[in-house]
């Protein structure tokens, strides 16, 4: 089972514009990491006037390639602090690929590389001496299918902090994380039970709690509600609204109405057919209410109203 906390291989080659990642089983001794600043304002919330003003993830003219194949391109997308940014679009438009680029999950795929720049609080995420493990701690991810570890509820949450070297105060971390994920009351009396005994919706909230236990400031979500029923979906959406105060959230969803309900801004991607293959591109990025009442691009309008080319 994929464990997104597992140490990944760092070590980049190639010029500044073109970041290749080593074969999955190559081990390299990385140069000392640039330490990513530990004192971000976002974990303490921001006041009304500046909420959302600062760009946390600055995505500049980014394309993602798998070998020679350009999966998605033309992406310039400023992700702002304490906002929920949604990415929508038809299958194959590259939204999930782009999401994975935000925390270097694509590193785990052979031949994956990006062009362009993704900077996180001003630091180039793909710079040679950036530690991808640290990236994934700061920029956490929640997946479509809940994937709790086959461990107790407690150990699921404690795992990340333990790996990071924490020995004391784990109980507080576990409680805090489960409370933040609106799960504490339901599981506080059975923390030693297996995580797999939870319902789908509870498992997904557990995965969210697990992600925030290591104190990220960005949480990426890849269709987190796709496998959940409407009640569980509502609970997650409610949770996302609350989490926005302390975290920055990027969510990929194929449910337009969900994007409309929970996001501050929405990015619409579309597919182009190039030589028989579908590639993705960013079409439009705007405040969600504007996009859903009066989109600027005809392609966005067509997609939202159900007219597909």
């Amino acid at each position, binding site marked *: 089972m994929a464990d997104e906390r597992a140490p990944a291989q760092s070590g980049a080659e190639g010029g500044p514009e073109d970041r290749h990642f080593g074969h999955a089983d190559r081990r390299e001794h990385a140069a000392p990491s640039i330490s990513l600043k530990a004192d971000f304002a976002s974990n303490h919330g921001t006041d009304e006037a500046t909420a959302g003003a600062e760009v946390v993830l600055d995505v500049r003219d980014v394309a993602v390639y798998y070998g020679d194949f350009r999966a998605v391109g033309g992406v310039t997308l400023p992700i702002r602090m304490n906002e929920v940014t949604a990415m929508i679009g038809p299958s194959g438009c590259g939204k999930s690929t782009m999401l994975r680029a935000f925390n270097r999950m694509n590193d785990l795929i052979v031949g994956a590389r990006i062009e362009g720049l993704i900077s996180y609080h001003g630091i180039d995420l793909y710079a040679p001496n950036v530690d991808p493990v640290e990236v994934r701690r700061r920029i956490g991810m929640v997946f479509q299918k809940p994937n709790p570890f086959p461990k107790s509820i407690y150990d699921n949450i404690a795992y990340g902090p333990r790996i990071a070297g924490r020995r004391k105060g784990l109980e507080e971390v576990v409680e805090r994380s489960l409370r933040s994920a609106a799960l504490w009351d339901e599981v506080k009396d059975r923390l030693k039970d297996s995580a797999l005994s939870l319902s789908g919706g509870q498992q997904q909230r557990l995965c969210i709690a697990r992600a925030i236990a290591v104190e990220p400031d960005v949480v990426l979500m890849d269709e987190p509600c796709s496998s959940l029923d409407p009640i569980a979906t509502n609970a997650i959406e409610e949770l996302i609204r609350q989490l926005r105060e302390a975290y920055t959230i990027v969510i990929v969803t194929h449910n337009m109405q969900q994007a*409309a309900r929970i996001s501050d801004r929405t990015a619409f991607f579309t597919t182009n057919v190039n030589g028989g293959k579908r590639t993705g591109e960013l079409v439009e990025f705007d405040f969600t209410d504007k996009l*859903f*009442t*009066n*989109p600027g691009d005809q392609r966005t309008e067509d997609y939202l*109203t159900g007219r*597909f080319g």
Partner: protein
Amino acid sequence: MTDSRSDFHEELERLKSDMVRMAAAVTEGVSRVTEALLRQDVAEADQIVAADDELDLLALETEERMIEVIALQAPVASDLRKVLVDLRMVMEVERSGDLVTNIAKAIPRLQGAELSPQLRGLIDQMREEAVKLFRKAIDSYVEGDAGLASTVDEFDDRLDALHVEYLDTLFASFGTSQLTPQQGFQLAVIGRFYERIGDHAVNISERVQYMVTGRLPAHAGAERARARREAQEQAHR
């Protein structure tokens, strides 16, 4: 381009046709009631009053279908703006139909009143302008033509001017004409009904502009209040 929501969009097209039908009933009604007024045809006036019930029923049924569309189809973007504008238009058209009825109801009260050639001429001109305005507004809706819609307000100025002229002519005649006070009052109010129909046409044209451009019409009063609010906020910073 495949339309994956063709049932929904076909319903929107049907709603559009129904809106056009209702608007045609109104413009026809304006002409009919004017002729009845100038001929003092009470029987025709009664029929016009009864016909308004049909318009009311059509308006109600259309509104119900629009609500259903919103509840079941969750329209967004241009589809949403279209349905919202349709909802407003039903209101404007239905109210315009009521104004036609108001004119019709005045006809029995004007039995035996002598209308001077000037007054008759002005009434006929107001009819012509009101019908023109309404048709322009509806054409702009059918064509999705924001440019045409934006001209309706200007043309309404003509109707407003005619209304003023009509009132001036009416009041000037009070000393010399045979009109009773009640008849004079009734005639003055009739002028207002034509002018109000023009206003509804302007409202429709503003909504059409919103439907096409996505920008709500600027209202002088709202703009003034907004400017005052911003000035106050500036002063407090």
